[in-house]
């Protein structure tokens, strides 16, 4: 059993729920159903599992049911049908006291509309979750101030929400949930009102926290780059239904239908794809075994003017140009003496965007090595550009 499991979750808003349900089963469109029954399909038949420590991102069109889905997880909205298991217990069947316990201890939320209390100061707002849990006054002040500090709002702690800008309010909502340190965090467009810089900071913060302590996060966003940056898995919804669930790469490289393809079209692939995705097999020479002649003949065969030099354990040692090989042959030097040790290397999970800087004026390809120095592949300019092309047959 995973930490969070959702089975056949459905929510219909309005009176004629049965009729709407029948129609949705017949694949009638949402607007059609609305016209006919005055009922809105919020979510229909959602199924997924989220592991502890995972960041699970939900994306989809406006009105596709993301908020409805996430709000059913802590039962702010009562599901029309379906089960929600948190640590094996069905939230949909809990009584009030159990539900309260779960909300208090396990699951917190950042609201799309912030949900700040207008009569409480920023600090008091941030303390709220802790207060509810009965944390002692001093302790909770300390935790809340720390959370505000990391949201860069400590200076404003004695102001009231209406004295803050939209983005600042959003960060207060964020700090309030984070201060509470829940197992599961539901974040409904939690970064939408933030500028790029602070947004990046907050993303980093989230990822850092995630390293420290494994939280399960359900994250709604409209920013695919953000989704790809922080999400372990991404799900895409439309008209209340889940269309695809997968890692960012899966979705990007293997969209299940045209809708998803179009949906991810605009993404900045350089921020998603990594060295690993675009590297090609390298032409190498084992400098511990090979002599210059072997190397030169190899170059001829492969029609290249350079090889990467590795040792027996495929540790990258440098690069060997044709000239250097010729020189070694002429002067009878071992290859180890002539290789250029200044090979630019990247790790396999370096983003393409970070490769630009290295590669654009580099005469040699970049070497991709893992943390042990083992050579995995090379990156050539053409491949970089090919990967960024949307319509290339394979990215």
């Amino acid at each position, binding site marked *: 059993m995973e930490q969070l499991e959702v089975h056949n979750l459905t929510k219909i808003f309005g009176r004629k729920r049965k009729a709407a349900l029948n129609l949705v089963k017949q694949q009638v469109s949402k607007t059609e159903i609305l016209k006919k029954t005055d009922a809105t399909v919020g979510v229909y038949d959602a199924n997924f599992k989220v592991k502890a420590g995972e960041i699970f991102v939900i994306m989809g069109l406006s009105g596709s049911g993301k908020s409805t889905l996430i709000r059913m997880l*802590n039962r*702010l909205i009562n599901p029309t049908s379906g089960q929600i298991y948190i640590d094996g217990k069905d939230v949909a069947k809990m009584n009030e006291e159990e*539900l*309260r*316990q*779960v*909300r*208090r*201890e396990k699951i*917190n*939320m950042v*609201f799309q*509309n912030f*949900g*700040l*209390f*207008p*009569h*409480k*100061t920023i600090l008091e707002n941030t303390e*709220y*979750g802790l*207060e*509810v*849990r009965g944390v002692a006054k001093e302790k909770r002040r300390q935790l809340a101030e720390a959370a505000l500090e990391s949201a860069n709002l400590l200076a404003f702690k*004695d102001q*009231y929400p*209406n*004295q803050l800008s939209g983005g600042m309010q959003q960060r207060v909502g964020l700090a309030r949930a984070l201060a*509470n340190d829940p197992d599961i965090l539901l974040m409904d467009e939690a970064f939408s009102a933030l500028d790029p810089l602070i947004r990046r900071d907050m993303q980093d913060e989230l990822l850092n926290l995630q390293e420290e302590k494994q939280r399960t996060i359900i994250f709604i966003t409209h920013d695919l780059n953000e989704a790809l940056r922080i999400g372990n898995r991404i799900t895409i919804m439309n008209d209340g239904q889940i269309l695809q669930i997968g890692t960012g790469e899966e979705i990007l490289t293997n969209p299940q239908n045209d809708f998803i393809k179009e949906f991810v079209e605009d993404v900045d692939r350089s921020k998603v794809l990594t060295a690993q995705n675009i590297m090609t097999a390298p032409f190498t020479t084992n400098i511990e075994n090979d002599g210059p002649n072997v190397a030169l003949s190899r170059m001829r065969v492969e029609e290249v003017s350079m090889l990467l030099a590795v040792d027996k354990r495929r540790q990258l040692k440098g690069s060997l140009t044709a000239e250097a090989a010729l020189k070694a042959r002429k002067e009878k030097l071992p290859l180890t003496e002539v290789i250029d040790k200044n090979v630019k290397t990247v790790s396999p999970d370096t983003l393409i965007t970070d490769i630009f800087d290295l590669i654009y004026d580099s005469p040699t390809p970049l070497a991709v090595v893992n943390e042990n120095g083992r050579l995995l592949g090379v990156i050539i300019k053409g491949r970089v550009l090919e990967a960024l092309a949307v319509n290339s047959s394979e990215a």
Partner: protein
Amino acid sequence: MEFVDIFSYKLPIAHLIDQLTNWLTTNCAGFFNLITKGGSALMDFITNGLLFLPPLLLIVLLTIAAYFGSNRHFKLPALTLLGLLFVYNQGLWTGLMNTFTLVLIASLVSIIIGIPLGIWMAKNDKVQAVVKPILDFMQTMPAFVYLIPAVAFFGIGMVPGVFASVIFALPPTVRFTNLGIRQIPKELVEATDAFGSTPKQKLFSLELPMAKPTIWAGINQTIMLALSMVVTASMIGAPGLGKDVLSALQHANIGTGFVAGLALVILAIIIDRFTQKFNQPIQAKPKLTPKQKRKHRVIVGGILAAIILVLGAGNFKSLTQKAKPTVNLGYVDWDSEVASTNVIAQVLRDQGFKVELTSLDNAVLWKSVANGSVDAEVGAWLPTTHGNLYKQYHNNLVDLGPNLKGVKLGLAVPAYMNVNSISDLNDQADKTITGIEPGAGVTAAAKKTLKAYSNLNDWQLSTSSSGAMTVALDKAIKQHQEIVITGWSPHWMFAKYKLKYLTDPKHTMGRSENIHTIVKKNLKTDNPKAYRILNKFTWTEEDMESVMLDINNGMSPQKAAQKWIKAHPKQVKAWVD
């Protein structure tokens, strides 16, 4: 037809209610007594405390409190100072303090009951469905209806006054607490829910703070309604400004009544402004630093301590004063009764009694004598005027016989009207007799008269109140118009205007009456000396009118009584020997 029958059968609700009241009175007496004792002890405590300080000192203290309380603005302290000085100047200070106690307790009780009830209503639609009609009931059932049960339960005084006030004043607090909580934006409720707040946490951290402006508006209404009940409460003996108002109005002294009313208004405005401090918009209050907070706490603590000290001191003083046997005289605030009651009260005082005078509504007065909350009254007009009351209560009180013989009821007209007998009336005064309260004896007599005289069979009797009648009379006389009133004497109107009684050949207005002294059942054993004096008390119409005249000329009733006693030593001696 069966249907017709159902409607001609009148449901005996009235009867049931009477029985219920009786049952409660007899079976829950212990409980009611407990409340009464506790309540009056508390209220005496407060009033004594308030009255212990010299008024001017208290005024100054309140002004200073207002100054600091209003962040050193000048409006509120100025209002406090001038308003209270005015009340003091008009001689209404004691009344004000009594009223303040009454309103304070009534409001507090209302708030303490009302806010939780309102919260419950807001959380539960079923409770709302049940409570709402009850609130409607409490606000629309006329106070007069429950005044008498209130007396039956709690006797007379402050406690039934608070009871009646709470019934009328409670609903707004409940209603607006309910409304305020229901109006809280859904997303905020969701936010508290999402954090797993308990209902209590939700209440104190979200609902009450957010609903505060609306709840305070409800409390403000509660205070206003409690103040508006002051006069009604005085009808069942609650001391305070209400009495001043009532007494002024029984004499149609609009001005005096207005001034007493004004004192009420001043109290209302000061309370309103003081409580408004609690009802500021959410973010207006500047955040206090810890130091300020500490200072704040010290100040508030100091004020509370001072209040408790003063209250304590006041009561210590009043405790050490009590010793003398008391006689509690009730009276209806009519001129004649004021005169006679003050005279007999003064006589009793001169004999070493402590006398308490309580002005009451007539029906309440009889009820009070009957249940012993009042020792005696000297203004029972029998057999006609108060005949029905006598009939109802005669088993529970003792009639000591007439103290003044030969008072008169009749139809009266201004002397300038050209008519002398009831049978001469034909189309004067728009064929209308201007009457007083619908239930008064003279009203019943006038009704009988209308029936008995064939020349009056298209006349009508327009009932109102004694005060209204004298105003109408005054107006008519000023404009030299025709008017026929239901008159009785002794009454000052006969001194003030030239009026004449119409002769009554059929005697339907009742033959002349006597004024009796009635006392509670066991006065004779409880307080034989007072009983003896009351039993011997008897005087004449001229005696009474001389006292009334003095009072009417501006002498205080007590002074007028003293003057008369001084002038009639022998007569008084006969009573006390």
